[in-house]
């Protein structure tokens, strides 16, 4: 799955293997099951890069992204996935929430 990122975003390469995921379900499962340190690391690295990523991808058709650009977008989506965990929950799962094993994410 993991492709190389476009030049200029090479420092995010380390996150590709774990977080370059195309569906919400995969991103969510990864967030739920990864140690929180890994979500924190992704968040810290991506936060200052989200605007440059959006700017860079603005020149592409989002429905036909080349592999490196798609990987970059997937990382940005994974950033949003972990944002709740990092900013609010301080936990991979929702504290006191319904059991995630019983909560089906279909897309």
């Amino acid at each position, binding site marked *: 799955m993991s492709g190389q990122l476009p030049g200029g975003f090479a420092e995010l390469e380390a996150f590709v293997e774990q977080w370059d995921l195309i569906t919400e379900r995969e991103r969510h499962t990864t967030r739920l099951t990864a140690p929180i340190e890994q979500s924190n690391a992704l968040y810290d690295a991506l936060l200052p890069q989200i605007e440059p990523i959006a700017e860079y991808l603005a020149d592409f058709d989002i429905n036909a992204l080349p592999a490196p650009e798609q990987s970059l977008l997937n990382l940005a989506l994974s950033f949003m996935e972990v944002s709740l965990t990092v900013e609010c929950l301080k936990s991979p799962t929702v504290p006191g*929430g319904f059991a995630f094993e019983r909560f089906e994410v279909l897309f």
Partner: protein
Amino acid sequence: MTAPEDRLIIKLPTEVPDMGTDPLPIEPYISADFFEKERTQVFAKAWLNVGRVDEIPNVGDYLVKRIEVLNATILVVRGKDNEIRAFHNICVHRGMQVTAAGCEKGNAQGFMCGFHAWVYDLEGKLTHVPGKEYFPDTDFDGLQMPPVTLEIWKGFIFINDQEKPKKGLVEYLGGLGDDLRGYPFETFNHIARYRANVNVNWKTFIDAFHEAYHVAEVHKNTIPDGCNSPDNPNAVPSSARIYPPHHAVSVPLNSAYVPTPAAALAWKFGASFAPGDMVDLEGLNPSGDDNWWFDINTLFPNFFIDVGPGWYFTYHFWPVSVDETHWEMNIYQLEAKTAAEKIAQEHTKVLLRDILYEDLSTMEQTHQSMKSRKLDSMIVGEMEIAVRHQLYEVMQWVDGKGCME
């Protein structure tokens, strides 16, 4: 403590039925006998949403909906003439279903029963019977899967278990349908679907979704200050509209809400569920409230369409038994044309989803407590007007006094 005369007033622009202020009886939420009455008096008479037209855009596209409370499996099909029809998923030979077990949607030229291979067209008509000559006494003319009454409003597909419902769909939706009519549902994309099976009565489940009183506590880890503000610490709804048997509640916005860095990015790029700049769309905020966040629309008995600026989402609460409910949520957003908008959408999705984990957390404990029968009633306040109205309507319908009699 705030003096009673200082409390915030919920705008009620519509006529409100005389529902009293007494505690609500718990028996209807736990009684198997009552559930049987709901089955025949409520669900067999109301218009029920089974999906959207966008889910079956092409000729031959179909949906299969299991509706436990009606003991029915419904096939919704787009025919050769582009009309959408519904049938009971029943082969007229010996009753097998004509779609494979577990199939929820697909595309077909017609349907072949997997038992003895009788064939039906997209209009539900029986078109082929292998070994027909061995049924010399059967008149096959006009045989078809049993039709189901269907109507479409704003792209939402509703079915009715009655052959001739007392009211058509538009009349049934009444003032609530009028309020929502201008909302551009057809321009939205379906971006997420979530499901859970929860051991709770369907009404208890629903009641956690049409009041904001719980937000500060239940949502303390996700969005505790979304609607609770210094001048409205209990998130009193700004308005509620009762259009029997339906109702709508407008959720207030905390104008002092400070977005997280991710929420701020989302609002910079597009629209988020988190409070932020309001996009003006027709059909929103019908009472013209200040500090408005979004509208909760409860379409009786079991369907919600919550509309906001740039997103809307639906809930279905399908009763399985008195003690079990199948829940589904679908989220829709305006099409993301850029990567930035796509990233913003992800924030709405993730935030709503994590909020839902919190909402679902209270259900089973509440239901267990109710079943202990140690309380025979529950206390419901002004902010929970929708909770009161929901039970009021269910009781009316069960007593044969609903609007579809």
